[in-house]
C-alpha cells in the first residue's frame, strides 16, 4: 500500500519513523483533558434544543441548588466585551456580520447554540445541573437548506436583516458572454456538495485560568491556531494581549475544525474570571456534532460552453454556500477559496462566477480539510465527466484537451491566481498506467458476468496550498497575515532546539523538521527537539492549516538554518584563521577547501559561539536565528486519482475495489509521512463520497448527532490503494516543496463518484449525489430501468 519502506534515522527524503509516536502509542500523549489544575471546576453548557427560538427566560434556581453546583452563568452574568469575532470580510461582497454573543441573549438560531454554563465540582454534577436549568423558549420558524433560505418568503435567521443573504461574490472575465454564445454546445450540471462534520478523534476542550491579582489569563485549548486565539481572547475578554497565554498541549486531530476561535474558549476564560479558579470544559461527542463547525454544504450550477473536442470555451458557475447561523473565524472565506479554484487544472479563460452565501438555522460552516477546494474540484471533475458523457468522448481525453500545458507556467488563472508549476499530463499518464486503464474493459466484462456493474473514475486536480502571502490574505479580506515563524537554537553541547510557529496535531512536524535540520546543518536527527504550542515562549505563529506548514513554516525553518550556518562560517573562519571564502560546507562542518584536517564541526562551532572567547569582530555570541517568512506565492500541488468501483445492482452497494493516486507535491521531506497524509486524505474523501452526511430535519433538529447515524469510515472500510508520485518542484520557495495535507481529500470524492456514475452509465445514469448510500444508488438504478 505504501510507496516507501520505513527506515530510522536520516535527513530530507528518508522515510524516518516518527519521533513523536512513542508517546502516542504508549498512551503518554498529554491532551487538554489530561490536565488538572489546583482548585479547578468543570463546566457544562446548556444548549438550545430548538433550531430557532426566542429565549424568554432562564430559571437557574434548581440547578444552582444542586449540591456540587457552584454557579450557573448566563448572558447577563458572563462578562464579555464583544461576541465571537469573524476575521473574514471578502471585499465587494457586503458580507454581513451578525453578532454572535458567547451565550444566547434573547434568541437561539441553531440546535446546540449555548445558552448557559453550569459550573460544578465535576463534569457529572455539572451535567446533572444542566438538566435542571429551565429555559423558556418560544419556537420560531426555521430554515436549514441554503437554497430555501434565499428564496422569497423564507423565515429570517436574523430578523435584523431583510433576507438571509450573508454575502455574495461575483467575478466575470471580459468577453465571457460572447465566448459562451459562440460555443458549439453547452453542458449543464447541478452538483450538491453535502454538509459534513470534521469529527477529529479528540473533541474540543479548554481550561481557562484567570489570575485575579494580575489579570493574567492562561487558556489551555485544543487548537490549530494558538496565537490567533490569544489575540481574540484579548478583544473578547477585554484584557491586554500581553497578559494572555495560550497553551496547546497534544491535539488529537483538527481537520480545520480547530482552525477557529470558539465561544467556549472565551467563555471558560470569563467564567474563570468570575469564579476565581480554573474552569475546564471538555466537549462530548454528540456536543461536537452541533457545537463545532461543519464543512462543505454548497449547491453548484455549472454551464459549460464547449467545442466538439470537449474543450471548455466558457464556464458559468452559480453556487450557493450554506454558512450556518453565524460567521465563525473564516466562514465567508471558505467559499471564496472555491471561487478561486473553479477552473481547476484546466485552461478556462472565459469565466463567470456567482457565489451566494446564506444564513440558515444550522451550525456555522467553516474550514474542513480542503476548505472550499474540494467543493471546486468535485464540481469541475463531475463536469468533465458530464462533458465526456454528453459528447461521447473518453473522460481522460476531455481532460487532456483542457489541461494547462507545462509551458504555460507560471499560469495566470481566470480567477486571479498564478499557478507556480505543473505537469498534468504526466500524472495522468502515470495514474492510468498504474490503474491499468487500458485493461478496464476486460475487468468490466468479468464483473458484468458476476452480476455487478463496474466503473472507473478519474479526478485530475490542482489545489492551492501554502496559505498564504500576507498581501493576498489582506486583499481577500482575511484579517490575518500568512507568514510563519521559526527559531533555531544551538546549545553549547551541539544539540538543537527548533521553535516553530506551526501547530502540528498529527502531521509529524517534529520528525520532518528534524530531518530538515539534519540535512541543512548536519546535526543528527535525534539531537533535534522541536517545540511549539505555547504563546509564552514562542514568537507569533500562524499555526497549521491549508497545507501551509511545510511550504511556509518549513521554509521559515530552512531560512533560519541558513542563517545559523552562515554565522557558524564566520566563527569557523576566525578559528581556522582563514577567510570565509576559503571555507566549504561538508554537510556537517566548515572546512578549508581541500583540507579535511582543517575543519570545525557544527557542534564545535556551537560550543565556540557559546563560549564566545574568540569571536570575530562584531559577531554576537551563540548560534541562534529567527525568521519570519512571508511566502511570495501559494503553491499548487496536483495529481490524478483513479478509482474503480463495483456496484451490486440488487442492493445498490458501491464498493471501491481499487484506488490509485499519483500526486505531485514537489519535493518530499519524509515519504512515509506523505503517504500517510495521502491515505488519510483519501479516506476522508471516501467518507464524504460513500458515507458521511450531516442531516437536519425540517424542524431544524439534527438527525445525525451520534456516530451511529453519522458514518465515519474505519480502518476496516479502507479500500486497496496504490500510491505514486511525480516531482515538480515549486519555484516559489528554496525547498521546492508544495504541500500534501489536503490533496487526498480534494481529489478523492470526485474519483469515487465518477467511477460510480461510470458503472451505471450503461443504464443511462449521468449523475449521482453524495453520499452514495446504497438506498440512493438503488433508487437511481430503479428509475433508470423504468
Amino acid at each position, binding site marked *: 500500500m505504501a510507496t516507501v519502506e520505513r527506515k530510522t534515522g536520516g535527513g530530507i527524503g528518508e522515510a524516518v519513523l516518527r519521533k513523536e509516536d512513542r508517546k502516542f502509542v504508549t498512551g503518554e500523549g498529554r491532551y487538554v483533558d489530561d490536565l488538572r489544575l489546583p482548585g479547578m471546576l468543570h463546566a*457544562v453548557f446548556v444548549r438550545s434544543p430548538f433550531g430557532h427560538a426566542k429565549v424568554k427566560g432562564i430559571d437557574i434556581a434548581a440547578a444552582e441548588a444542586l449540591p456540587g453546583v457552584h454557579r450557573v452563568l448566563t448572558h447577563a452574568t458572563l462578562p464579555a466585551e464583544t461576541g465571537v469575532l469573524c476575521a473574514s470580510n471578502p471585499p465587494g461582497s457586503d458580507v454581513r456580520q451578525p453578532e454572535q454573543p458567547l451565550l444566547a441573549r434573547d434568541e437561539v438560531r441553531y440546535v446546540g447554540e449555548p445558552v448557559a454554563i453550569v459550573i460544578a465540582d465535576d*463534569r*457529572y454534577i455539572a*451535567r*446533572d445541573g444542566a*438538566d435542571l436549568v429551565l429555559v423558556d423558549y418560544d419556537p420560531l420558524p426555521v430554515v436549514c437548506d441554503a437554497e430555501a433560505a434565499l428564496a422569497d418568503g423564507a423565515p429570517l435567521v436574523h430578523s435584523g436583516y431583510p433576507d438571509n443573504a450573508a454575502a455574495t461574490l461575483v467575478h466575470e472575465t471580459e468577453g465571457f458572454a460572447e465566448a459562451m454564445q459562440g460555443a458549439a454546445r453547452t453542458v449543464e450540471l447541478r452538483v450538491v456538495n453535502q454538509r459534513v462534520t470534521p469529527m477529529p478523534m479528540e473533541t474540543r476542550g479548554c481550561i481557562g485560568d484567570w489570575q485575579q491579582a494580575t489579570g493574567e489569563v492562561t487558556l489551555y485549548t485544543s487548537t490549530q491556531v494558538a496565537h490567533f486565539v490569544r489575540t481574540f481572547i484579548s478583544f473578547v475578554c477585554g484584557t491586554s494581549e500581553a497578559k494572555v497565554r495560550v497553551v496547546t498541549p497534544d491535539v488529537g486531530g483538527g481537520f480545520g475544525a480547530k482552525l477557529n476561535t470558539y465561544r467556549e474558549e472565551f467563555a471558560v476564560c470569563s467564567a474563570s474570571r468570575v469564579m476565581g479558579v480554573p474552569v475546564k470544559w471538555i466537549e*462530548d*461527542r*454528540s*456536543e461536537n456534532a452541533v457545537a463545532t463547525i461543519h464543512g462543505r454544504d454548497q449547491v453548484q450550477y455549472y454551464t459549460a460552453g464547449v467545442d466538439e473536442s470537449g474543450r471548455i470555451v466558457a464556464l458559468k458557475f452559480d453556487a450557493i454556500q450554506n454558512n450556518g447561523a453565524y460567521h465563525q473565524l473564516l466562514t465567508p472565506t471558505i467559499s471564496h477559496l472555491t471561487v478561486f479554484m473553479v477552473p481547476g487544472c484546466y485552461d478556462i479563460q472565459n469565466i463567470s462566477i456567482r457565489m451566494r452565501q446564506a444564513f440558515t438555522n444550522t451550525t456555522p460552516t467553516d474550514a474542513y480539510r480542503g476548505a472550499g477546494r474540494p467543493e471546486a474540484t468535485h464540481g469541475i471533475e463531475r463536469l468533465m465527466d458530464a462533458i465526456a458523457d454528453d459528447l461521447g468522448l473518453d473522460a481522460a481525453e476531455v481532460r487532456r484537451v483542457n489541461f494547462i500545458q507545462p509551458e504555460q507556467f507560471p499560469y495566470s488563472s481566470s480567477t486571479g491566481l498564478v499557478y507556480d508549476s505543473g505537469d498534468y499530463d504526466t500524472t495522468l499518464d502515470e495514474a492510468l498506467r498504474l490503474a491499468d486503464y487500458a485493461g478496464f474493459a476486460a475487468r468490466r466484462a468479468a464483473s458484468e458476468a458476476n452480476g455487478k456493474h463496474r466503473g472507473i473514475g478519474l479526478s485530475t486536480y490542482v489545489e492551492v496550498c501554502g496559505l498564504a502571502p500576507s498581501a493576498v490574505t489582506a486583499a481577500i479580506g482575511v484579517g490575518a497575515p500568512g507568514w510563519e515563524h521559526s527559531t533555531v537554537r544551538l546549545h553549547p553541547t551541539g544539540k538543537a532546539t527548533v521553535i516553530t510557529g506551526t501547530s502540528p496535531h498529527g502531521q509529524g512536524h517534529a520528525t520532518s523538521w528534524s530531518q530538515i535540520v539534519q540535512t541543512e546543518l548536519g546535526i543528527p536527527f535525534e539531537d533535534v527537539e522541536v517545540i511549539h504550542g505555547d504563546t509564552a515562549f514562542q514568537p507569533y505563529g500562524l499555526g497549521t492549516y491549508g497545507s501551509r506548514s511545510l511550504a511556509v513554516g518549513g521554509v521559515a525553518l530552512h531560512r533560519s538554518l541558513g542563517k545559523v550556518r552562515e554565522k557558524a562560517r564566520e566563527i569557523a573562519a576566525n578559528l581556522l584563521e582563514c577567510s570565509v571564502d576559503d571555507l566549504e560546507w561538508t554537510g556537517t562542518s566548515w572546512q578549508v577547501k581541500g583540507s579535511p584536517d582543517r575543519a570545525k564541526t557544527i557542534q564545535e562551532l556551537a560550543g565556540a559561539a557559546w563560549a564566545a572567547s574568540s569571536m570575530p569582530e562584531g559577531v554576537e555570541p551563540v548560534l541562534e536565528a529567527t525568521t519570519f517568512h512571508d511566502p511570495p506565492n501559494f503553491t499548487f500541488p496536483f495529481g490524478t486519482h483513479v478509482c474503480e468501483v463495483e456496484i451490486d445492482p*440488487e*442492493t*445498490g*452497494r458501491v464498493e471501491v475495489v481499487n484506488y490509485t493516486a499519483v500526486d505531485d507535491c514537489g519535493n518530499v521531506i519524509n515519504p512515509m509521512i506523505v503517504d500517510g497524509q495521502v491515505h488519510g486524505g483519501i479516506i476522508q474523501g471516501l467518507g464524504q463520497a*460513500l*458515507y458521511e452526511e450531516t*442531516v437536519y430535519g425540517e424542524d431544524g433538529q439534527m*438527525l*445525525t448527532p*451520534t456516530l*451511529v*447515524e453519522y*458514518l465515519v*469510515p*474505519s480502518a*476496516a*472500510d479502507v479500500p486497496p490503494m496504490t500510491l505514486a508520485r511525480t516531482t515538480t518542484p515549486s519555484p516559489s520557495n528554496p525547498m521546492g516543496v508544495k504541500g500534501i495535507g489536503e490533496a487526498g481529500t480534494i481529489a478523492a470524492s470526485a474519483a469515487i463518484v465518477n467511477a460510480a456514475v461510470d458503472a451505471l452509465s450503461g443504464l443511462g445514469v449521468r449523475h449521482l449525489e453524495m453520499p452514495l*448510500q*446504497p*438506498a440512493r444508488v*438503488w*433508487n437511481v438504478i430503479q428509475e433508470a430501468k423504468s
Partner: protein
Amino acid sequence: MIPSTLEYTKATSIDEAIAAVQAGARPLAGGQSLLPMMRLRLAAPGAVVDLGGVAELVGVCEDGDEIAVGAMTTHRAVAADPLIGEHCRVVAQAASGVGSLVIRGRGTIGGSLAHADPHGDLPAAILAVGGSVIARGPGGERRIEIGDLITSYLTTSLADDEIITQVRLPKGNAQSAYAKFHRRAIDWSIVGVGVAIGPDGVRAAATGVGDKPARVTGFEAALNGGASLDEAAAAAGDGLDPSSDLDGSAEYKRHLVGVLAKRAYLEAQG
C-alpha cells in the same frame, strides 16, 4: 454523553442478581447497548447490577434436542462455538457479524435479546431457528419463545424482576445461514435475514423490518408451497412494515429482505 449518577454492584450468583434486580437495579451484561443509552441519557437507571461475575451464566452445552447457551456468553464465544456452528449455524453467523471484534468480545447473547433492538442480529437469527429463553425471577423459571419475548421497540415481556439466564436453541438447523446488509464494517444491519432449512420446511426471520424481528412469511409460504426461489424472494417483503429513514425507504428495505433471504437460502443449502 455524560451518564447520570448511579449505584453499581456486581453479582456473583444468579440469586444475588435477582435480588438486586428485585431491589430496582438494572442488569448490566456487556454494556454495549446499555452504556451508550446511559451516555445519551436515554436510560438513567439509579442502580445497575453487573452480571459479569456470575459464572453459571456463561457457556454452551448440549441438553437433549437443544443447545443451552448461558445468557452472558459473548458474541465472540457464540460465533466460535462448535456446537452452535454445527446445529445452528445461522446463530453463529449472526454473532460473528455483530459490530466489531471489541463489541463481540463484550456484548452478550442474553443482552442482545433483552435489549430488543429492532436492528439486532441475534433476535432474528434465533427467531429463524425457533429458539427460546429461560427467564428466572423470584417466583422461579419460565420459558419464553423468542416470538413472545420481544414485543416492541426495545421492549420485552420480561417482568421487571426477571433476568434471562439461558438461551435455548433447537438442534436440526445445520442448514441455515444469516445474511446481513449494512454499510460500514462496524454497522448495525439495515436489514438482516436468517434462514433455516429444517425437516418441516423453511423458516426465515428478518431484522430491521419494523419494531421487532419478524418471520418472513411471504418467503416461507412461497418456498414451502413450491414456488421458485426468485418468486419467493419477490414475495419476501409481503406483510412487513419497515420504516422509511436515513437508511432508505420502506420499499427499499422490503426489497432487501427478498435479496437477503435468497442469499441466505442459497448459502444455507450449501
